[in-house]
């Protein structure tokens, strides 16, 4: 019998071979790609590997020793007020879910408009990004947080005064210690003009602020922003999750009203894959460390904490709040709600060599959903009204799910959930979140 070279290998032969856990097929592919291109991989999205997360926690719910609230009858308040420490005009949101900072440049104009429309519908805030504030964004976002970033692209005192809150960005969870990145294919005429850059260049933002270093300088910078805006606006400081306990203490010392803490699962428009997957700590332990630092300083609830990085469901929201956060922010999930990675785009994704669910090339400027692109042929496909309404629906679901869990724990305000309501399913999560392993009283590291 002659051997057929085109026939697939016999099943028993395949089963007899063992896939390496160390050199799995993705790793082998990446080695081949690196050998071919001589360049690290830059991509969008966030950390993709399995990490300890809120999935590893459960709520206990009420029983005999605690009684629950009626699901549809008894009030469970979701309002959040931010900036009560120093700001003359704190902001109040109707839901504890906010929209994280994402730039015009990284996102299309219609995508930014859709974020504003969706947030408005449910009474929450959106946030600018590296590249400044657009008119569409200000017009369509009732409550808009203006970021002050190291690059200061488009930074302008008029926009500072037009904002409802100011966020000094020190770092982001996807790349603590790294600056922004926008590849040339997304630097359109308008983006270039807003950032005072030549069109089409690969823009790499500074990773440090140009006029301050360290907490003592930061305190003076925050004072400057307060003086310029006559102490009206809440001032947030955003940090990537690293040495969280100390960073949070230093933010408080520097005079922040609100701390935005972004865990390593936080998304990015464009970052080196090695940075996304290997720098920073997961959101779960970071929240615990931040809350401990605030409590140590007797500042918990006086300085508000917004947590981001991997928030997908009302369960994630509720668990972050139960651990002590005042609110959460969503970025990647908001883009998905607008239509990113939608199955209806399967043909377009297939032509790009990917499939819905795996698309991560937000850096490339080629996006059939019209979200992470500056190409008019693509971004005009995104209807901001329709996409904004989808986002609003999603935000409502997150809020309803959060209330459902809070009521099950007997809480009449989502801020009344507490770590005592939580148990961990894994030893790692118990240690990181500082809650007992389910079925035990054991918190690793505590006793």
């Amino acid at each position, binding site marked *: 019998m002659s051997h057929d070279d085109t026939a697939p290998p016999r099943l028993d032969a395949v089963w007899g071979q063992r896939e390496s856990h160390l050199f799995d097929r993705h790793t082998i592919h990446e080695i081949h790609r690196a050998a071919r291109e*001589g*360049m690290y991989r830059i991509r969008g999205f966030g950390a993709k590997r399995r990490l300890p997360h809120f999935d590893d926690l459960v709520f206990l719910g009420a029983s005999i020793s605690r009684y629950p609230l009626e699901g549809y009858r008894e009030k469970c308040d979701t309002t959040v007020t931010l900036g009560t420490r120093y700001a003359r005009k704190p902001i109040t949101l109707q839901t504890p879910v906010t929209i994280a900072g994402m730039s015009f440049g990284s996102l299309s104009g219609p995508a930014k408009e859709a974020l504003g429309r969706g947030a408005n519908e449910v009474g929450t805030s959106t946030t600018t990004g590296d590249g400044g504030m657009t008119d569409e964004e200000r017009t369509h976002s009732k409550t808009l947080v203006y970021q002050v970033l190291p*690059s*200061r692209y488009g*930074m*302008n*005192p*008029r926009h*500072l005064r037009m904002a409802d809150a100011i966020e000094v960005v020190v770092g982001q969870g996807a790349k603590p210690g790294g600056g922004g990145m926008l590849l*040339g294919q997304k630097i359109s005429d308008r983006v270039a003009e807003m*950032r*005072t*850059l*030549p069109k089409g*260049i*690969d823009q*790499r933002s*500074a990773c440090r602020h*140009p*006029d*301050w270093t360290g907490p003592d*300088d930061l305190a*003076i*910078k925050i*004072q*400057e922003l307060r*003086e*310029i*805006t*006559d*102490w009206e606006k809440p001032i947030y400081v955003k940090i990537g999750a690293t040495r969280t306990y100390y960073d949070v203490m230093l933010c408080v010392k520097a005079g922040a009203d609100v701390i935005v803490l972004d865990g390593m699962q936080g998304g990015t428009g464009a970052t080196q894959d090695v940075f996304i997957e290997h720098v920073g700590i997961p959101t779960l332990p970071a929240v615990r460390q931040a809350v401990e630092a605030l409590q140590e300083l007797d500042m918990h609830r006086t300085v508000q904490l917004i947590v981001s990085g991997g928030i997908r469901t009302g369960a994630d929201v509720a668990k972050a709040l139960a651990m002590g956060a005042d609110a959460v922010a969503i970025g990647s999930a908001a883009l998905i709600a607008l239509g990113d990675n939608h199955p209806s785009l399967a043909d377009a994704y297939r032509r790009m060599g990917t499939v819905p669910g795996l698309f991560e090339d937000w850096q490339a400027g080629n996006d059939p959903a019209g979200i992470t692109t500056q190409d008019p042929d693509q971004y005009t496909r995104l209807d901001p009204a329709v996409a904004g309404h989808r986002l609003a629906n999603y935000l409502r679901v997150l809020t309803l799910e959060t209330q459902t869990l809070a009521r099950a724990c007997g809480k009449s305000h989502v801020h009344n959930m507490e770590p005592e309501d939580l148990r961990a399913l894994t030893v790692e999560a118990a240690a990181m979140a500082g809650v007992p392993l389910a079925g035990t009283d054991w918190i690793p590291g505590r006793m």
Partner: protein
Amino acid sequence: MQTVDLDAVPLRDLNARLHDPAQVGRIADWRVLHPKGRHNIAVGLDAPVTVRIDGHVGYYCAGMNQHATVEVSGHAGVGLAENMMSGRVVVHGNASQSAGATAHGGLLVIHGDAAARCAISLKGADIVVRGSVGPMSAFMAQAGRLLVCGDAGDGLGDSLYEAVLYVAGRVKGLGADCVEQPMEDADRASVAELLAAAGLDDVDPAGFRRYGSARELYTFKIENVGAY
């Protein structure tokens, strides 16, 4: 003329008055006494007033200035006129680090020396330094002009975009992608214009050299990795 003594009036009141359209509409000239190195003096101004400060100032003096003229008789701390949009800021002494950082417009004149990172991330303003500037000046400067009558420290213009630098004295070293370029007629006119705008009539405009971006590192290429 309105005089404000910072030994008697809180800084917050001074800035609030300088932001109040009714007050700056009525009073065009302000004088600030006893600044004593306080931070954030005369920040966020947005009116064509003149503010003269008698003494030394701390961080971010005249930060984000628009339209106003701010004159400091002494030295200035970190981030002088940072992110200035328009107007004119003059310091008769020296300036600390990051003077004119990210400034988009207007004119900053430093009669003494400026420390490290002067004109960092400059976005369109003009900066004239009568003395010398420290290392890493004009780092990542995107647009605008920096004119230095004295010397420049190491790493001048590192990762420069489209800003143009003129230096009369010695340049200790150029940063990545910053190169000396020929002085054209337009450059000689620029130098004369900047010196005149700064009121420096004792500086010879003929002695300046021009530095700008080679634009080799605008797009990240693996073959350039050794340049960083």
